[in-house]
């Protein structure tokens, strides 16, 4: 049974605003056109995701644009007056020139996420270049050496939260192996009416400010109603004893966020048109500041054909989780002349983004209920008895040392079949639980409140909230690059980084050392290195290395899939290979915006 948050979600900052309107947003919401006129509801929500700019030379003007998503007028940071920013369509092999002009009163920048380029074109102020000052134009120019779905966003302050993000689609040299009749980008994002600096400050003052699903007496009694007071109470006490929160699924939630699809609120309902029988390529991009989405289209099978812009062996699924900054291309083939809802619920179930695929504008399909909240379990804590299925009864028993295995597992035979007791003695393709050491002194310091005992190397865990939900959910185990990397040497050395954090103080870091106190990670040009990431924390983090591919390995150490952003579940250990084939200074960070700003960021220098 999934964990349940029965309470009314906490809508702290929006108490006065009608909850429904806040979650749903305004039907006509979005960016006002640069001329100041409202775009009509229809024009705003149907057809292409954003203005598409093609060619080799682009003029992008970053400015402030009034928007209204919730009934309250706000100022967004936009490109050419648009939120999301215009879709940039490039061609593999071209050299693109992008003139970016800053019309803001503060510095800005654009980072081309997942794009291989010279490091001085990467757009990270303080690493790649000095940033773009107000009134200045910076010209980016670089050859396009790849194809697929990517995106771009500001790397300055919180502009990424206030609207500065857009899609990049690069058409390949040769026609794609997977042809499609229609091609839509589906850019998911999270919008807040609050000043992001205020959001950040609230998190630093009260880290669970936006968490409206906390353990309470109400949820305890519901839990006890389901399985008796003994197990319910013992699990609760276990969490209390550890001073950890099993509902710490998202730092920033629907309490302040309105979730957008292509810049449209759920009520705005962005709609992509199709004719029955057509093959549609949906290019999902998670351009959120903080939100993981679980995406499905009830009634349609999805075939995943690319991840982070790179072709993967097609895999049929019903649902996928998309980490912040990840992209997935899926093919759908609706046969019926009916509408389908693209339902993207936030990982903490505090809200959803919604869009529609339909034969005609204005058609709608049913919008599913939000799934129930699933609590973090023992496996997410890195305690030895976690079973892959997030077994609540399990947690209560083993949390106390007073272990009662019979009780713990008896109720969950299914989950126990691949439980952690069956540790493989040799590396296996599935992975398992391994013990970890914590070699960094600062991991035991103020900045890190958890030291998992054992961590999972499995790639086939869909993560908290999606376990055993009865749907076929994509996991990293399903992703296999079509082409192996050109440089597929075995790594010559290994760099182990632990993702660390202290939610109580809102501190985030690698190895317990926040950015300011750390030194650059050095790679020698031309070497092939294995990065080993161990997630000490109980949160899910998307880790992004700029400029260099992250070639994810299977648990037995073989190359599996090429990505630019890699999600780690709580208490998970993943490894990937990196070819240091581009000199310069590169950013390496958690792509949750407020984690990054709090210090979960490193500089990588290839010299």
């Amino acid at each position, binding site marked *: 049974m999934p964990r349940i948050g029965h309470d009314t979600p*906490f809508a702290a900052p929006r*108490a006065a605003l009608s909850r429904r309107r806040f979650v749903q947003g305004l039907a006509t919401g979005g960016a006002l056109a640069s001329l100041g006129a409202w775009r009509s509801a229809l024009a705003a929500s149907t057809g292409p995701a954003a203005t598409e700019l093609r060619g080799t030379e682009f003029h992008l003007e970053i400015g402030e644009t009034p928007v209204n998503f919730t009934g309250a007028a706000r100022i967004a940071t936009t490109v050419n007056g648009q939120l999301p920013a215009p879709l940039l369509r490039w061609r593999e092999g071209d050299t693109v020139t992008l003139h970016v002009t800053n019309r803001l009163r503060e510095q800005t920048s654009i980072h081309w996420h997942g794009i291989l380029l010279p490091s001085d074109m990467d757009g990270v*102020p*303080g690493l790649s270049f000095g940033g773009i000052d107000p009134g200045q134009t910076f010209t980016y120019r670089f050859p396009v050496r790849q194809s697929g779905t990517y995106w771009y966003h500001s790397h300055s*302050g919180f502009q990424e939260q206030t609207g500065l993000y857009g899609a990049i689609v690069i058409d390949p040299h040769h026609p794609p192996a997977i042809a499609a009749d229609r091609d839509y980008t589906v850019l998911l994002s999270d919008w807040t009416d609050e000043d992001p600096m205020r959001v950040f400050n609230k998190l*630093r*003052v*009260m880290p669970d400010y936006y968490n409206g699903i*906390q*353990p*309470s007496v109400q949820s305890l009694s519901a839990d006890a109603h389901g399985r008796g007071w003994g197990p319910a109470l013992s699990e609760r006490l276990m969490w209390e004893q550890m*001073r950890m929160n099993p509902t710490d699924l998202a730092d920033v939630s629907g309490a302040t966020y309105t979730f957008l699809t292509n810049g449209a609120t759920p009520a705005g309902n962005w709609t992509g048109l199709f004719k029955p029988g057509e093959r549609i390529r949906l290019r999902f991009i998670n351009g959120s500041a903080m939100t993981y989405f679980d995406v499905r289209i009830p009634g349609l099978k999805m075939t995943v054909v690319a991840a982070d812009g790179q072709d993967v062996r097609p895999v049929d699924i019903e649902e996928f989780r998309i980490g912040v900054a990840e992209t997935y291309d899926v093919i759908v083939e609706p046969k019926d002349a009916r509408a389908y809802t693209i339902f993207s619920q936030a990982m903490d179930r505090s809200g959803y983004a919604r869009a529609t695929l339909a034969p005609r504008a204005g058609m709608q399909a049913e919008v599913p209920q939000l799934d129930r909240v699933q609590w973090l379990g023992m496996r997410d804590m*890195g*305690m*030895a008895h976690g079973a892959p299925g997030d077994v609540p009864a399990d947690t209560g028993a*083993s949390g106390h*040392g007073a272990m009662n*295995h019979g009780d713990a*597992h008896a109720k969950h035979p299914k989950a*126990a*079949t691949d439980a952690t*007791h069956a540790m*493989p*003695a040799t*590396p296996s393709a599935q992975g398992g639980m*391994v013990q*970890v050491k914590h*070699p*960094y*002194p600062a991991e*035991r*310091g*103020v*900045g*890190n409140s*958890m*030291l998992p*005992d*054992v961590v999972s190397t499995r790639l086939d865990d869909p993560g908290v909230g999606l376990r055993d939900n009865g749907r076929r959910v994509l996991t990293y185990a399903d992703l296999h690059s079509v082409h192996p990397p050109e440089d597929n040497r075995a*790594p*010559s*050395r*290994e*760099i*182990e*980084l632990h993702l660390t954090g202290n939610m*109580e*103080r809102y501190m985030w870091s690698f190895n*317990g050392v926040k950015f300011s106190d*750390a*030194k*650059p*990670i*050095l790679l*020698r040009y031309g070497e092939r290195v*294995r990065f080993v990431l161990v997630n000490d924390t109980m949160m899910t983090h998307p880790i992004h290395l700029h400029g260099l591919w992250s070639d994810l390995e*299977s648990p037995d150490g073989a190359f599996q899939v090429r990505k630019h952003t890699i999600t780690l579940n709580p208490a998970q250990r993943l*490894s990937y290979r990196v070819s240091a084939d581009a000199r310069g200074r590169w950013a390496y960070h958690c792509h949750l915006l407020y984690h*990054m700003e709090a210090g979960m*960021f490193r500089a990588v220098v290839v010299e």
Partner: protein
Amino acid sequence: MRPLTSLMGLCALSITLATTVASAQSADVDHGAMDHSGMDHGAAQAPAPAATDHGNMDHGDMGHDGATQAAATAPAAPPVGSLPASDGAALDGAATDGAAPAGAAERGYDSYGIHPHMMDDMPAWQVLFDKFGVSRNRDGQNALQWDGRFWFGTATDRLLVKSEGERENGEGSDGKVEAFWSHAVSPFWDLQLGARRDIGNGPKRNWAAIGIEGVLPYNIELETTAYVGASGRTALALKAEYDLLLTQRLIFTPELEASLYGKSDPARGIGSGLSEGSLSFRLRYEVTREFAPYIGVSFDRKFGQTARYASDAGASRSQTALMAGVRFWF
């Protein structure tokens, strides 16, 4: 004299306790230490009940001890375990930065021209009044109550100013103001060094203060401060509270407070030893996170010489009061 000695002992005990709590912290959060036995237990013995559910489990593997397993299951044993030396890694047998450019690990951002604008050192601040309201006791006396704090600083180092007390209608007031440097010593604990000044009725005593504040297992918030003042005065203040969420907005808070003194201070009506204790229960409703009206009841009791001073002054030794107010912060 005896109370003083015992109180000094208590102070020392409290500080020892504080240190122990703080240092035990790392052990607490380290599941490696805490639950390791559980882990081994699980790996070694768990099969019995669990195995019945493991249709496809390989029992032959279960005999391995954890270390062997860890080594064996590590993905294709890496050629060299090379960790960023700048983070002070000390993994057994790992050559730190083995293949990195020599000496390079010692160099900071400046030598690479790296100057990003991160906010990880940016200070924050908060003004929080846990209690701000009125109380009315059994004798019908009304009082204004406050318990607030202001802090400014980073996640690890803060200037902290606290004040609590009450002003009775026509009866004068009692309270204290404190200022600390609050320094994080472990994930859940701060060590606090500072000073206190008593306000209200009687002489205004000044104290040097050392305390710890943090969260105990089971999410109990604890503040303990030991004080040393002029003329050999010593004191100890303890406060523990727990927030029990009834719903997401309705929160029940039991709070226990106690103060101890090493020396009688008749001018302030304080006797040596355990002088006062208070148990209160508040129920607040968070209209927003920042604004939460509360109602509550408190049971206060004076002990020993302090109680006798109170009796002599015609006041009662113990008192029950109802309270109402607002918890707010910004």
